[in-house]
């Protein structure tokens, strides 16, 4: 217990602390506009919605730690949602149950394609994932047009995404909690995690250390794909249906969240707690803006300015010398 507490203290770096500070500040400003921004109902609602971004950002973070990036998020999310709902309808009750793992597996499959391209073909991730995103879109268009699939989500998905469990905590939040805990463990306590950080710092050194570097990269992208798809499954559960465009709103926010959380886009540095903070920050900011009655143009500008300001607070890199 105390060991855990100590390690926690050791892991909290200033960036993360400030990030959580920003969250408080944001809520305070919000409360000036409307006190309901600090009402438990609203906060839980926010955490619930944040969970979807949280799950997706987890995958994004693992890839970013490698020094890579995953631009296939939008359509992998959609694949997760659409395939799971489709399966849910195909084999009746059986489908309802295997729907979730199936959706995730589809994401893993796409992740493996990206991973293969990056790890074995050595194509820059930015472009492979872009291409995989296009392929995923193509697949979903054919899927929709060809099979007019059902898109109503199964009970299980509804339950995960919108249900509440003990003490009225949203299940989605619990799901994120589990995913987060797993990710933290994976990154800090396993050889895989070490390898990920290592690769982010120096691929050559990792390779010469006799680590199966390419397999680690492949795995990382598979994870990212699976988590994006899982995000899609949850979103489908939340919306009670899947739709092609459901992932569009998650690419840039997931990257922004990870970086706002103090993870270096160059790889090798960052911890999960930061990503948690980043995710909550982005979600809150979006929600607060969305209900403020100002022109959309104004919202966009404020959104950008606020992110810059927060980064200036703590996201700065050291000088080269």
């Amino acid at each position, binding site marked *: 217990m105390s060991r855990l507490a100590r390690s926690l203290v050791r892991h909290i770096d200033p960036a993360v602390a400030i990030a959580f500070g920003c969250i408080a500040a944001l809520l305070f400003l919000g409360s000036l506009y409307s006190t*309901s921004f600090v009402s438990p109902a609203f906060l839980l609602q926010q955490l619930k*919605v944040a969970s979807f971004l949280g799950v997706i950002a987890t995958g994004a973070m693992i890839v970013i730690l490698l020094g890579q990036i995953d631009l296939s998020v939008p359509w992998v999310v959609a694949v997760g949602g659409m395939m799971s709902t489709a399966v849910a309808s195909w084999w009746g009750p059986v489908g309802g149950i295997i729907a979730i793992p199936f959706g995730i597996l589809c994401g893993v499959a796409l992740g493996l394609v990206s991973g293969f391209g990056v790890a074995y073909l050595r194509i820059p991730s930015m472009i492979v994932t872009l291409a995989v995103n296009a392929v995923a879109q193509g697949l979903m*268009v054919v899927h929709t*047009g060809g*099979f007019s699939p*059902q898109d109503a989500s199964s009970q299980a998905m509804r339950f995960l995404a919108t249900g509440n469990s003990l003490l009225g905590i949203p299940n989605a939040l619990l799901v994120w909690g589990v995913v987060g805990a797993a990710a933290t463990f994976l990154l800090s306590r396993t050889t895989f995690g070490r390898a990920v950080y290592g690769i982010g710092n120096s691929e050559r050194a990792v390779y010469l250390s006799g680590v199966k570097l390419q397999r680690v990269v492949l795995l990382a992208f598979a994870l990212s794909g699976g988590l994006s798809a899982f995000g899609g499954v949850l979103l489908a559960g939340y919306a009670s249906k899947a739709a092609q465009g459901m992932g569009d*709103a998650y690419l840039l926010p997931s990257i922004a969240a990870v970086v706002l959380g103090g993870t270096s886009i160059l790889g090798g540095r960052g911890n999960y707690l930061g990503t948690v903070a980043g995710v909550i920050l982005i979600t809150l900011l979006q929600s607060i803006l*969305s209900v403020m*009655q100002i022109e959309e*143009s104004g919202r966009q500008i404020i959104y950008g300015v606020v992110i810059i300001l927060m980064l200036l607070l703590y996201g700065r890199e050291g000088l080269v010398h």
Partner: protein
Amino acid sequence: AAGPKIVAGPNSDPKCFAPWTDSVKLFQFTQKKGPYRIALANGFIANTWRIQMIKTAKAYASQPDVATKLKEFKVVSTGEDVAAQIAAVNNFIDSGYDAIVVNAQNPTAFKPVIKRANDAGVVLVAFDNTLDTEDAINVNVDQKGLGEYWADWLVKNIPNGGKILEVRGVSGTSVDRDRHDGIQGVLKASGKKWDTVEVIGKWDDPTAQKVTADAIAVHKHFDGVTAQGGDTGVVQAIIDAKHPFVPFGGETENGFRKFCAKYSADGLKCASGGTGPAQVAVAIKTAIAALEGNVVPQSIKLPLARVEDPNFKDGQDFYSEQSDNFFVGNAFPTCGINFTAQEIMGQSEANQ
């Protein structure tokens, strides 16, 4: 100059090709001998509406009486990028197609293309996202009128005004703006006291659902809701927030109408209006008519497919076994176009 002759009339098929206003010009293109080569220059493709639209177009083109008139029916989708769509239209013109049907990414972007088409004697018909022009045929949905229709419903069903949630579409588009103007216009004119809260739903269910949930969490209560897309998500948010059902003016998604039918008794009093993707068929029909030298109005008004509570009928106004994303309102009886869900989505495994 080149292009269609402006004629006094008579309109070759006033019932189907209903002119937008009495003042609309009537076009007559020089008659061409069939069968014709017709192209559909679509932009964005990756949502159910567009996919359904394309399948309808193929289905319509392969209907026996239509098929005989067509030598070739080609479809190209160019994505969000308007420049690519313009290039596609240009390519169709250069490749000597007789008519081009287009769902424009940007209504104002086609001025030069329209000119080229007219110079080349190619019939250009726009639908859904139509063109701001008097030199090409527009098959219009009355977007402003749609907004007015929704607002009327709210005015009718909310006796003494109140707080309205308006879920808007994609910012920067004219469709969003027109529908918004329609809504606000009617509300103002109604003389009742209205207070509208606007959120951006982007015509997308998850987005609409999230912003609706936020709005409810902050504003606690609304007396009425109107949404121009992503309506299924909006209703879902209302249910999840345990917000009492209130009058709702919305689009024509199958999922939305399912909800309306299901919760009518609980107070979800809906007006569902719009035009399904089948309008592409009307556009093709118009193009063929024009090629045959028949007189058609420059601006055609599509009838809205509308249903109000309490008469949502399964299998006619919505399809409980079809997907939520499916768009109903595909019947244009005045044009002899009447697609059922099955014809469009249903038996399509066959033709893949």
